[in-house]
């Protein structure tokens, strides 16, 4: 079976700055892939291109076999996207937000209702699902956000630093729901700065530096190649101040 997400040679420049230079990656169904890299490595730009929010200057993206620029609506319907800085509509309640996005994803009203109920149970949102989102705590907001991204049962989840600015408990909530999605056979690609999360969750890890993937593999592969005991050390060795530049590595 073809991978759920296939990206080939993605490139994006912002004026004179090359943000992403030729990134290729795949994510299979039932697989969690972590995208790691220092600030400014091009993680967000890469994820935005994969989600069809940004058009790459070169390269192509396929979600469940659908090219995101040839069939954008069908491809996007199979995608759930969430980023850490995403807010919800302040003056709508979680239920209203879910109903709104359900309709935008062309779901039927009964399907929206049953799925909403299911997610409210699953994410334990009963206490606040009818309150305006502007009044929720960060953790509650992020749970509601997850519900929005998972609502239409997408084949692929792209999560950009989903646990940023969350406390340990709320962060754990997200991590567990990502595991559940993997168990349900979905493909998950997520970026994070929290190494323990990546160690715990990821089947595979991609290291992005200066807009290029400088290393990839399972946690054990990476540790073995770098000769480090944990991912933090490996990360620092590869992309830290003393690290060779991406160009040198790719040569």
């Amino acid at each position, binding site marked *: 079976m073809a991978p759920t997400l296939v990206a080939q040679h993605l490139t994006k420049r912002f004026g004179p700055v090359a943000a992403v230079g030729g990134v290729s990656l795949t994510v299979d169904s039932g697989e969690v892939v972590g995208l790691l890299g220092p600030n400014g490595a091009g993680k967000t730009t890469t994820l*935005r291109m994969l989600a069809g*929010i940004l058009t790459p200057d070169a390269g192509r993206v396929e979600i469940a076999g659908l090219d995101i620029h040839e069939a954008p609506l069908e491809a996007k319907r199979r995608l759930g996207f969430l*980023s850490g800085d995403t807010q919800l*509509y302040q003056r709508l309640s979680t239920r*209203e937000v879910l109903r709104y996005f359900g309709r935008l994803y*062309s779901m039927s009203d009964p399907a929206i209702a049953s799925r909403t109920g299911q997610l409210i149970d699953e994410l334990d949102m009963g206490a606040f699902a009818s309150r305006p989102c502007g009044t929720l705590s960060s953790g509650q907001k992020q749970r509601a956000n997850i519900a929005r991204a998972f609502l239409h049962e997408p084949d692929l989840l792209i999560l950009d630093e989903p646990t940023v600015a969350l406390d340990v408990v709320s962060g754990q909530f997200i991590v567990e729901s990502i595991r559940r999605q993997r168990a349900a056979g979905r493909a998950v690609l997520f970026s994070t700065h929290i190494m323990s999360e990546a160690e715990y969750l990821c089947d595979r890890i991609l290291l992005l530096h200066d807009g290029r993937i400088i290393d990839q593999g399972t946690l054990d592969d990476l540790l073995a190649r770098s000769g480090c005991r944990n991912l933090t050390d490996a990360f620092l060795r590869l992309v830290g101040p003393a690290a060779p530049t991406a160009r040198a590595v790719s040569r």
Partner: protein
Amino acid sequence: MRLAIVWTIVRKELTETLRDRRTIMMMIALPVLLYPLLMMGFTKLQVSQREATASRASRVAVWGSVPSGLLAVLSDEGRILVDGAAAPPEAVRAGLASGALQRPALADAGTPAPADTERRAVPAPRTAEPENPAMLAARAIVAERRVDAVLVLWPDLLPALAQGRAGRVSVYFDSVREDSIEAQGRLVERLRGYRADLVRQRERDRGLSEGFSLGLDVRSTNLAPEQRRSGQILGLFLPFLLITMSLLGGFYPAIDLTAGEKERGTMQTLLCAPLRSIEIIIGKFVAVWIISLIAAMANIVSLGTTMARILPGDQIHVAPSTLAVAFVMLLPLTFFMTAVFLALATFAKDFKDGQNFLTPVYMVLALPAAVTMLRGIELNAWTAFVPVVNIALLIKALLVGEAAADLIFLTLVSSTAWAVLALVLAARVFAREQVLLGGRDSLRSLLGFERQPGAEPTPAFAFTTFAFGLVVVFYGSLLLQGAGTVTTLLVTGYGFFLLPTVLLVAAYGFSPRRTLSLRRPPVGGLIAAVLIGCSAWAVAAGVLIRLLPPPESLVKALEQLLLLDGKPASLWVVWLVIGVTPAICEEAFFRGLILSGLRRLGPWPAIIICGLLFGLAHSSIYRLLPTFFIGVLLTWLVWRTGSIWTSIVAHTLNNGIAATLVYNKALAAMVGAGSEQFLGWKPTAVAMLVLAAGIVVLMRTRPVVPD
């Protein structure tokens, strides 16, 4: 574009916006409170002050020697109270008593003061009389508010009265003080009565008939009916108030739905949803427009209620139908402003940035609506093309009851054109992912002047081009004001229709042959073109004109135009300027560029819309139906034959024959297109037969599939 999705977005945006207290304040609460408070407060204050002033007796100082009976006349009705205690300073008193103080001549000696100075509503400027001790003393005592006005009886008054000459008196008052104006009015009125008695007495003494000195008894009466007078008052400020307030309703929502969403980070969740950017922008646009319209409605209802129920008496009367029409006028205006707001607010990175962007734009666009407060600026063919100003002037004209149907039409067409341009801009901005994610984008890519090989015009392109063309022609014709008819027609044709067409085709890299249908015409198509070109005008002149007969002035103007200013020119010049030039230039624009954009709508929608745009471009409601009819026939020719030459032939014949008939009266009489307003039934019937034959030939012509 999926309407269900657009509607989902509209509903969500409305729900969210209506839960925002700030919007509700601007949209409903402000107008509902503003008008009653403003008007009631203002008129109550005015009325009560007027009443207070009217009920109070004016205190007046009288300086100088008083002729017999004057004091009695002044205080006759008890409205003037002569204050004996308000004596002049000693120097003035002595000067008036001794005759040393005389009334100075007016400073501006070049123009003699009118004999009847005291009747003038507006007093002569203060500088007219040089400063003098009496004036200074009067100014001081009025400023101290000891009296409201001072009447100075100059030393020569008594001798002059005795000798049958005109005695000199002066009234000193302060035009800024309501009480003082009132005192001056009363004094002048009483003095006039005193003078009338004096004149009557003199006439009697000399045995003259009564009225001898009066000579003429003049009365002027205001002809404007009550409706128009109140309309004029309203017309001064109402359009401005309505426009600024309605636009304010959409101001915050426009920012909130674009820059606000960017700031809150909800924009990217929309962008990764399976939506087209056009669906998002149209959804947001409709929501903001609805809010603007609710604001407009709240303003109008509040205003109407205030006028009808709250204002004391029948001071200002305004018909509900006028308010309804004013609301209709606000439709294209709010449409335009909403689109401009959205396009610009989308550039802003957050709410504050959005406010900074939009406030100057709001000022620049809404403040010109204040032109209604200037006298002399009226709605005409020029002002009808200036956005916002045209609607303001039109509402004013409606209130005064003198809006011409043609100008209403022109205003609506031009406003819609502006609105479409603004909406296209908004849609373009919204299609730029860079802008949506907070970055900047080049103007060049925004305006879409990036060539794409093999590109084809789209319907959106066609509408934009049409709106753009209208605006170019308008501003171009401003430049041509004063040039002769021949120059105007040639420059308009080649410069404003053909040149932009060629430039646009080149700029976008469209195929000229396909876009402009530059193909060899089939023989049948040419025959059809000749038959239609010879007959279509006659059907229009014999049938369609009867439905909405144009006013005489328009017919004359058109004839004048067809005759090239009525100057005798050779017939071939007329054919070249009136026939061939518009045929080539307008066909290239309408049947070439615009039709190519409309093609993908299918034959009949494309033909009808292209004909309609052609009709609208003639900028007259009386010419709309005939030009629409001819436009449809011309478009149909090109659609069937795939060749623009057919419509050029038909258009040339159509215009040329019409001009020839105006040019040659004898020929016109021969075909029955004489002096009557409409073409006779007999020639019309013949023309219909010819037209039918042309259509039959056209239907039998093999349609050309665009290559």
